């Protein structure tokens, strides 16, 4: 376990060169996979590829029948479930099997992915290569779960402190959503950019990015509904410093390494301390001072609570599902008739395919209820971070079962000096005339001589 931003990918890239072996990396974040590939290419390594459902049929074939020339293969769990793919994988040997975001395998973790449960079996099928499970966020319980599910008996565990000492922690509370918006504005004016602002809804991210952009901030929203070509531009603008603030959703990570992110602001409360820690970990990767600001207004915990509820099917839905699935009804019909969300359907189908024995309904009701309760507990824990009145960092240490260590620059409760007011950068790049802009793209004129 390594905190976000401390070079997890080095852990599988380096051994590949030392031992000259192929590496297969399972990752659940499809949108990030291509970015990870681009990172490695950027470094100069060409034999890297991704295999996921984003590819066209032709592109998939191209990767599948060229496996032996691919040093780093990123693959999504659902592609691993395709028999033809596994057949091809068996033909080449892998020295290292990497499970990225390994906490997704644990049903106690916040991002449980049922298809990760197959990984243990698949690893055996591939001749049991050395397994490297990576995560930035795992409590002791989750770590135990990961080993169990991956069917690993003896593992060397490398656990680094969850603490990122260069990130100062602050919570700002406000009484109403309107007040929170102006709180955000003054935060953007006082805390240094570049920064990322996390939202729990795409719509709010869009609306506020638009609002602040019209007010003269260099902002853009960035989430799963933004088309890929536009997303690439936004990432690169952010890297180049053309954008100061990215308005992103919690569910959607940035696949780029921007080392100098100075501030991470949460506009909505995350659904667990684990998620929170992972997200603030985007700040200060270069080691310099950075900040986390959580904006809280009364009742904010309702949003993740409702989300957790909507992800959990009710007991009558579960019973009906079992009846219909046993009678071999079409999955689309079941989903529509029972008003099941995609997530609910995925979870139910998974358990059904695994063990459709009599008494299934009650076992699943029990299982899902305890999962829901676990999620609720996570949300309550996150709320404790807000309500805390001694030290915020100490609270995070406790959540991960670590022993707190005091530090100088810590949190608003321990006392932080006010940051200096930032100068707002101008937007001249966006107001250039066409010929000026053309000249700049083609490196003509004065501006480009400086390098």
């Amino acid at each position, binding site marked *: 376990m390594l905190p976000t931003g401390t070079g997890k990918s080095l852990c599988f890239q380096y051994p590949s060169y030392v031992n000259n072996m192929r590496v297969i990396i399972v990752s659940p974040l499809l949108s990030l996979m291509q970015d990870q590939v681009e990172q490695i290419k950027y470094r100069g390594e060409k034999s890297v590829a991704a295999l996921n459902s984003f590819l066209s049929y032709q592109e998939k074939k191209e990767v599948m029948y060229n496996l032996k020339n691919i040093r780093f293969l990123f693959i999504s769990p659902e592609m691993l479930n395709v028999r033809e793919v596994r057949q091809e994988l068996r033909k080449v040997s892998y020295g290292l099997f990497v499970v990225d975001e390994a906490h997704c395998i644990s049903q106690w973790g916040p991002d449980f992915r049922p298809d990760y449960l197959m990984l243990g079996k698949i690893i055996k099928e591939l001749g049991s290569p050395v397994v490297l499970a990576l995560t930035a966020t795992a409590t002791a319980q989750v770590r135990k779960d990961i080993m169990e599910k991956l069917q690993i008996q003896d593992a060397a565990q490398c656990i680094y402190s969850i603490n990122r000492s260069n990130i100062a922690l602050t919570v700002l509370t406000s009484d109403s959503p309107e007040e929170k918006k102006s709180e955000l504005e003054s935060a953007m004016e006082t805390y240094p950019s570049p920064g990322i602002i996390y939202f729990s809804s795409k719509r709010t991210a869009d609306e506020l990015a638009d609002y602040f952009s019209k007010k003269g901030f260099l902002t853009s929203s960035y989430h799963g509904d933004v088309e890929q070509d536009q997303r690439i531009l936004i990432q690169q603008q952010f890297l180049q410093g053309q954008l100061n603030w990215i308005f992103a959703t919690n569910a959607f990570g940035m696949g780029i390494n921007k080392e100098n992110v100075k501030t991470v602001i949460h506009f909505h409360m995350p659904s667990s301390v684990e998620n929170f820690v992972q997200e603030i970990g985007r700040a200060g990767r270069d080691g310099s001072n950075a900040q986390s600001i959580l904006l809280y207004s009364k009742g904010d915990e309702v949003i993740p609570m409702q989300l957790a509820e909507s992800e959990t099917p009710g007991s009558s839905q579960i019973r009906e599902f079992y009846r219909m699935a046993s009678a071999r009804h079409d999955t689309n019909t079941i989903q529509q008739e029972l008003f099941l969300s995609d997530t609910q359907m995925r979870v139910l189908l998974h358990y059904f395919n695994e063990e459709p024995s009599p008494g299934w309904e009650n076992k699943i009701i029990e299982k899902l209820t305890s999962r829901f309760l676990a999620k609720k507990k996570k949300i309550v824990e996150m709320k404790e971070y807000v309500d805390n009145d001694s030290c915020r960092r100490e609270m995070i240490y406790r959540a991960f079962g670590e022993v707190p260590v005091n530090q100088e620059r810590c949190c608003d409760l321990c006392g932080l000096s006010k940051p200096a007011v930032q100068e707002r950068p101008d937007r001249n790049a966006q107001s250039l005339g*066409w010929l000026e802009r053309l000249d700049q793209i083609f490196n003509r004129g004065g501006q480009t001589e400086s390098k």
Partner: protein
Amino acid sequence: MNYSEAIYLIGLDLFNGERTDSALYHLITGKKTSQTIQDAHLFGLSPLFSIVPNLKRKQFDETIHHLKAQNFLILNETSKSLVTDHGKEKVRHFFAEHYFPADLDGWRYGDAGRIFWGRVSLLIQTLSNLTQNESRFFPVERDRQIQSWVKDQLIHSKSAKKTLFDQLYLEWKALFQSTDFPDDPLLIVQKFSGWNLIGLTYDQQADSLSCSPDEVYYRFINALHYSLAKIVGKKEDYPMLHHILKDLLKQDQLFTVSTAETKRLLDNGMDLIEISRKRRLKPSTIEDHILELALLDRTLEKKPFVSEELYTAISEVAARSGSKRLKVIKEAIPDADYFQIRFVLAKENGEANQWNSYYRKNLALNSSEKDKGRSSATF
């Protein structure tokens, strides 16, 4: 009303209650079937062909539903959409205040334009970085075929990178400075990415050009299609841009594969029935191919399919009644069969540019008013 809605309404108005909403969806997403290709040409909608290839069906349906809810559309007796007078008035009003994309040519440049754009963007970004001695950058274009095309160009080019880069600059600059360039060059220039400046998203352009993102989208495509037509028409002035484009403009891409085969057999002197037997396809399928050819291939002879007299009779009735409805024509000329009527209509409509004439007839504005619709971006 937003920009896409206005465009859809013109599309449905040109269909004139003779095609379904689905036909419009297939057309704007560029479905390559004989039926859609015929629709595009028969109703003068080829400019919109493949103009929004990634549009989700659900989103399209929601838009149409929204237009119906506002009474811009009603259903006729055959359950096809007709644009109401109210709807037409709104469209007229809309394009009095917004730029009309008169240079769209999705049929010719929709697919080719997208690849051309990918190549050009990546080539510019690459050369901009390389000429600054920066060999590491994140490509704005991730399509592997486009990436390897650009790589090949750079490996095989005899000229120095600086020379290529200068040439690209001069050609674009000349293009943007042509007196008839239809819109603000910023629509294109803002999307270029270079060594120290990354291109803008549609949302950001919308802010900068003071219009909506979907208007930026259509106007960008419009300006791009204008540029491509110019590059093709004056290739001696734009040798490098033409080089980037030329292999994307294959003549035989214009027909579906099956139609091309029918054309080959026709050229060998076989008739409709013989072709149908030889290819084991229904005669009606071969008829569809012939109609596609009638629309797209000016050299196709009419004689094997319809006599000179009948041809004249049908085209006169069609012109007089102003209808493309087959039944109306059939009633006037009982001797003609439906295939012959469709053949004549196809042949007659193949070349007409209803898109632009629709603009002139229904949205007619004098040029000063037209300029008002353009952006007032600062220079």
